[in-house]
């Protein structure tokens, strides 16, 4: 059994009569020790999806489907059961570390909290382990920094503190929600390396949420590409460039600047992101897809197209039964390069 099993998850937000359909049926699994990258643009539902695992969504969220973590039915678990998981079996790392630390308390006191909340250690022991953890995430002179306040740290240092906090209780799963987005590029690389090393050393599973395909490919084993609250493609990170199939992912990869091509205007995906205020009818990418057909008015299911490779696209799924290789050449050329 996998550590995380999400099946048919739908999440909508109901606030003052305004409904937002954030997640529209998602399947996602994380095996023990696996790193799963969740990639998508803002509003694609990636953060909402992963935040539902420790059930930290705001009260206005309505969830349907099934979320299992470590054998616990998260959506139906009691509040006490959930508290017992958070910080102990699931650690969270957030995008903007300064906002996620209480400005009026020392970083040390916040760092020790997972141990203290779960009675895993007394104060002295927690402090000792906190110092050790700070050292491990690369904070110089941890004893002196322990009693500093968040405003006395730089963004990169704070993110290290947040990582130390998330990992101090040695959780089975760490959820990193855009951990490098607010950092500058050199610090980004350091933080990524640190996360990856820690994940390997502590033998944890990790869900890594990002909008950066390159970053996702660097850290993850498996990548889920999300669009409009659905997973449009799931594939091994190693296959990302070679074997991607969905028109959206193709468009994304196409729009990356490349050094091995003449410099010109970058291609982009025309159109606007999905309006999440409407319930999803059909493929979320329909309006922006250059190859849509009449089939695309109904939502395609994730279909297996190879070993640990699934795509939700009528065109791609349709091709599987098409025997004549020349038939596909027209519409999809450029979308699916050499891999077929």
């Amino acid at each position: 059994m996998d550590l995380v099993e999400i099946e048919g998850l739908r999440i909508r937000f109901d606030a003052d009569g305004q409904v937002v359909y954030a997640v529209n049926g998602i399947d996602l699994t994380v095996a023990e020790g696996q790193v799963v990258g969740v990639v998508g643009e803002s509003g694609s539902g990636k953060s909402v999806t992963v935040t539902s695992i420790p059930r930290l969504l705001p009260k206005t969220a309505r969830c349907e489907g099934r979320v299992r973590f470590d054998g616990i039915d998260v959506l139906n678990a009691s509040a006490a059961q959930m508290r017992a998981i958070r910080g102990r079996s699931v650690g969270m790392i957030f995008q903007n570390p300064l906002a996620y630390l209480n400005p009026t308390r020392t970083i040390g006191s916040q760092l020790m909290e997972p141990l203290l909340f779960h009675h895993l250690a007394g104060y002295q022991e927690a402090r000792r382990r906190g110092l050790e953890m700070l050292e491990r995430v690369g904070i110089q002179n941890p004893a002196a920094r322990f009693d500093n306040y968040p405003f006395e740290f730089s963004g990169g240092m704070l993110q290290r503190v947040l990582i130390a906090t998330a990992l101090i209780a040695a959780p089975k799963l760490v959820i990193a929600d855009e951990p490098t987005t607010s950092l500058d590029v050199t610090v980004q690389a350091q933080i990524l390396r640190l996360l990856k090393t820690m994940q390997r050393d502590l033998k944890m599973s990790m869900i890594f949420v990002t909008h950066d395909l390159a970053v996702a490919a660097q850290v993850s084993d498996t990548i889920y590409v999300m669009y409009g609250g659905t997973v449009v493609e799931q594939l091994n990170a190693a296959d990302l460039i070679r074997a991607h199939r969905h028109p959206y992912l193709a468009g994304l990869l196409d729009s990356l600047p490349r050094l091995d091509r003449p410099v010109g205007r970058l291609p982009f995906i025309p159109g606007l992101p999905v309006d999440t205020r409407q319930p999803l009818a059909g493929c979320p990418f329909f309006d922006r897809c250059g190859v849509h057909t009449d089939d695309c008015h109904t939502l395609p299911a994730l279909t297996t197209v190879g070993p640990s490779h699934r795509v939700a696209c009528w065109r791609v799924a349709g091709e599987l039964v098409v025997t004549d290789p020349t038939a596909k050449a027209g519409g999809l050329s450029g979308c699916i390069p050499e891999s077929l």
Partner: protein
Amino acid sequence: MVRFVVRRLFFMALTFLVISLVTFFLMKAAPGSFLAMNVGVNGASFGADQYQVSPQVMQAIIRHYHLNQPWYFQWWGFVQGFITLHMGTSFEYPTTPTMTLIRQTFPVSLSLGLISVAVGLSVAIPFGIIAAVRTDTWVDSAAMLAAMTGTAIPSYVIAVFLILLFGVWFHIFPILGYQGPQYYVLPVLSLSIPMIGASSRYLRNSLIENLHSEYVIAIYARGGSLRQAIFGNALRNSLLPLITTVGPQLAALMMGTVFIEEMFGLPGMGHIFVNAAGRRDYPLIMDSALLYAVVIMLMNFLVDIVYGVLDPRIRKSGRMG
């Protein structure tokens, strides 16, 4: 921190001078004078008993109080007298030095104000917490309706209501004079009820905002409970800004004591202040106005210092205000 204190003290001195000037000119601009009011209308009035109306004595009085001197001389006389605590005597109480008058009456007003703030805060804080935790339930609505009503009704109207309720109908508390602590109950309630309203609303909103902020989500993510989120974190961060509202609240309260002392017959400074203004008792008007100004400025100053000490961002960076 030292720089902040020095700067602040400088501005307080400046404010003090401005207040003294404004008070002085407003006082002079008010029609009539103590002598004219109490002598001119009818000879049997209160003042006429003390001041013989012969021109010679009148001249002597005018000289004694420097009323024939240029304005800046008079003004500085008041300010200097106040600063050096040699205030002399007033028109109305020619035999009691103003210092003695203040010593006798001001503690009543100040304690009334401070006790009201203390009572107000100790009721407002639990009120605000309960309303914030039970947001959008009937508990919240009821608490906030009560708070709004309390804020909207001025303290002297509340005082009348309290006198009716506790004094006239139920005979629980005395309503006039000062012979023991129980005489404080109704005045303190009348002053603190509006403050409870304002402060609990403030705390509720600030606490709700804090409870929805990211750092509280992070506490839940570490396995913390609502209790830990409130008492270890959000409450403290909401109380910090609440402290800053206490200064202005206290200023409003001290002004409120002027009415309340009149209504409950408390022998406080407010009573003397009002009488002095009504009777154009120049020295007493100046001294009481300056005293209130200094007390309010000092309280605000203290509140800011406390805030600076409690908030690590200010304490450690040393930047304030």
